[in-house]
């Protein structure tokens, strides 16, 4: 766990993760939905792994299955960061 996890930092890691799994960088924003980004459940599993490696925050299937937008995931990770 790095010291000083900021919302900006979480946002950057998640944006980069989404691009890594194939999302269009220009389309990625807090308000973008996963459907719009063509990001599916397996992509989100990969992004969750990146988040866990980076921040030590575990996101399980039940945590993310109802989340629709990028911003909702960012907020969840920030809320769970120690």
């Amino acid at each position, binding site marked *: 766990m790095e010291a000083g996890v900021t919302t900006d930092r979480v946002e950057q890691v998640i944006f980069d993760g989404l691009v890594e799994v194939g999302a269009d960088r220009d389309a990625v924003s807090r308000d973008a939905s996963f459907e719009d980004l063509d990001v599916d459940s*397996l992509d989100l*599993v*990969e992004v969750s*792994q990146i988040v866990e490696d980076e921040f030590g925050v575990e996101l399980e299937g039940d945590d993310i299955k109802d989340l629709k937008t990028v911003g909702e995931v960012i907020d969840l990770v920030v809320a769970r960061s120690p």
Partner: protein
Amino acid sequence: MPPEGTHGCALVTGAAGGIGAAITRVLAAEGWPVGVNYRSDSDGAERVAAEIHGDGGRAVVVAGDVRADGAADALFDALEERFGPVLVLVNNAGVRADGLSPQLRDDQWARVIDTNLSAAFRTTRRALAPMLKARFGRIVNVASVVGPRANAGQSNYAASKAGLIGFTKTVAVEVARRGVTVNAVAPGFVETKLTRDVGNGVVDAIPARRVGTPEEVAACVRFLASDQASYVTGTTLTVDGGMSA
């Protein structure tokens, strides 16, 4: 052999003898550094590793009962530290505890399901994240012709192996778009410790009129684990001398 530039290794569970040992040897010969997992036969595992070293390959013996809590993490952590991510996983560890269903005890049922099916789930779950990240992975589950077909006295074993085949198909579909393949092999009667007490009359039921060898199963695993098998996923390759045909 590993795709060019690939940094990683193979893990074979239950690799101290029989089919597991043969698979481990062929994967090492293909150029993979291999983890030789065993539960109780440390001498057998050490022999397999020594043979691989003698042939110029890389191998490390990794002890652990795949049924134990935390076993998957322990095995993978050890191999990742030594050789990098596990990119080929062969779930081979298997046991039998035979009995007719009316007399099959809970512990016989649980031991077989836990070892042959649940442990394969846990190693597969542990394997997938690094494979997805690498955009390459090969999982081969060693099932059996028992499961797809009946064998009196082995309802627990049949359930575990049929379950393993169903598990194989579904995981294959989940991860196919990331270059990770998941397949099974289904051996028939193969000469190993596990089949030592099976009756002689069985050969008459095999069109090839002989039992198979561990090397014949290993050859199929070698193909499924290869880069060339990149478009083969979710399938079960039967290796039984024609018995199921």
